[in-house]
């Protein structure tokens, strides 16, 4: 490199060569990507951990011409990326945060596309004896017994739902700081692993639970309560934001609510796990 430097300096053309090099690199780099057919979908860890998003994207890419890159982060992070225009379309699951997002002008529209239920899982031994209780009774029992509870703690849709549930159960805020309550800051299956290893309770969506943990010594203890409904929506971003593939985003939204896709969602994993991981919106 120094050799090149010395050589160019001798010939007195270092400025021109440097500019030419930078210019050519930029031209080459920018020409490497064709924007109109590529899009960035920002979604949650639960759709990724179950493998559903891979199946959906595969179908979508076959049917349309788009090339989709998928980034799985928590709902909170996804919404913030949407605010900055760092993605083209969002698939998230936190209705109140999504509505705020739209009201604040960052999102153009919100379309519900699928649902499942959250469940509270824990060790088979069930030290706090929460099996069969309602959600608020169960959480109160865990708090009273001081049994280990593991939270996502990452501002994801699941985490936001958990915070709501603690409020419904009568707590002013989440019990963070208590020695029986910890937060992993990681995705759903990582958090389930931590809960399994520490014999703790945790809140999970049933889809990820079925796909990753059914033979692990953990069991479902509370489910099928109204407050545990988990709705996923596709959010289209504000049309005024630049550099966003709005057309691709709309195509993805339309794909998700089409009848064939809704059927596919319901059938996904049914044979393998004995029940649907996600349900359509009807």
């Amino acid at each position, binding site marked *: 490199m120094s050799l090149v430097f*010395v050589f160019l300096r001798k010939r007195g053309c270092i400025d021109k060569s440097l500019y030419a090099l930078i210019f050519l690199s930029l031209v080459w780099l920018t020409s490497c*990507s064709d924007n109109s057919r590529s899009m960035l979908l920002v979604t949650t860890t639960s759709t990724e951990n179950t493998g559903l998003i891979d199946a959906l994207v595969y179908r979508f890419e076959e049917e349309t011409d788009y090339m989709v*890159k998928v980034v799985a982060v928590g709902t909170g992070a996804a919404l913030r990326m949407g605010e900055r225009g760092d993605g083209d379309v969002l698939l998230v699951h936190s209705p109140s945060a999504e509505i705020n997002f739209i009201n604040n002008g960052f999102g153009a529209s919100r379309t519900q596309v699928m649902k499942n239920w959250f469940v509270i899982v824990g060790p088979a031994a069930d030290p706090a004896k929460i099996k069969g209780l309602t959600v608020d009774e169960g959480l109160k029992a865990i708090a009273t017994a001081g049994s280990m509870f593991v939270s996502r703690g990452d501002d994801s849709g699941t985490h936001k739902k958990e915070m709501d549930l603690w409020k419904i159960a009568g707590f002013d805020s989440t019990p963070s700081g208590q020695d029986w309550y910890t937060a992993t800051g990681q995705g759903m299956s990582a958090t389930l*692993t931590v809960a399994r290893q520490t014999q703790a309770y945790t809140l999970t969506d049933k889809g990820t639970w079925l796909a990753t943990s059914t033979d692990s010594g953990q069991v479902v203890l509370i489910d099928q309560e109204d407050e545990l409904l988990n709705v996923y929506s596709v959010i289209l971003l504000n049309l005024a934001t630049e550099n966003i593939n709005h057309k691709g985003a709309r195509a993805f939204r339309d794909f998700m609510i089409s009848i064939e896709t809704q059927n596919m969602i319901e059938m996904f994993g049914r044979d393998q796990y004995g029940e649907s991981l996600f349900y359509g919106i009807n």
Partner: protein
Amino acid sequence: MDLILDAIWETFLLLSQGDSEIWSITLRTLIICGSSTIISFAFGASAGFCLAVLPFRGRAALVTFANTGMGMPPVIAGLLVAILLWRSGPFGGLNLIYTPIAMIISQCVIAIPLVAAITAGSFMSLPESLFLQIRSLGAGRKETLFLLAYEARLGLMVAMMAGFGAVISEVGAAMMVGGNLAGDTRVLTTATVLLVSKGEFGRALAYGIVLLAMVFVVAVILTSVQNLARKRI
């Protein structure tokens, strides 16, 4: 214990059945990390050489800067590069985020200070009189550079190995700027993290074994070159 035996068996299965995914991930890892190593060696070694040999003001400050760069947490490098490359960032228009090129950039940011600092150290440890002796024997600029590099070759090889080791084992920055996209930017380290988060520990260990094997092979090659070089002295 059976988790480890499980992993060894999984590795054997994975590799013998020709699981194409692990091979494509391994190849991609080699290409990305190999490119980063070569690029950061080119820039880092020249920077180190200039730092060590050329006289200029503020040299001490730059050497300190390079040494700090050695200890910089790779995750911070990744975050900085990501902020620059996000669509909302200053270089967003280049559409580099979540591409292998972005990963190479962040890996170079991590490895260049490392290579520069080690190279500078190895040049600085050459006897002062050597430089004068070479020049007094009539060597031109090019020849001086080659002769000095030859004298410092052991240190240069250490610098290259250190650069390679740093980029191949890095996971935080790779996840942030690459996004761990299947088929595009998934490398051995990020794939392992994903498998662990899914609870597939056996397979994760298998990936880890492949990664270790790769590092081992590169180390063997570079070390034997180093030994050959030493024997000639």
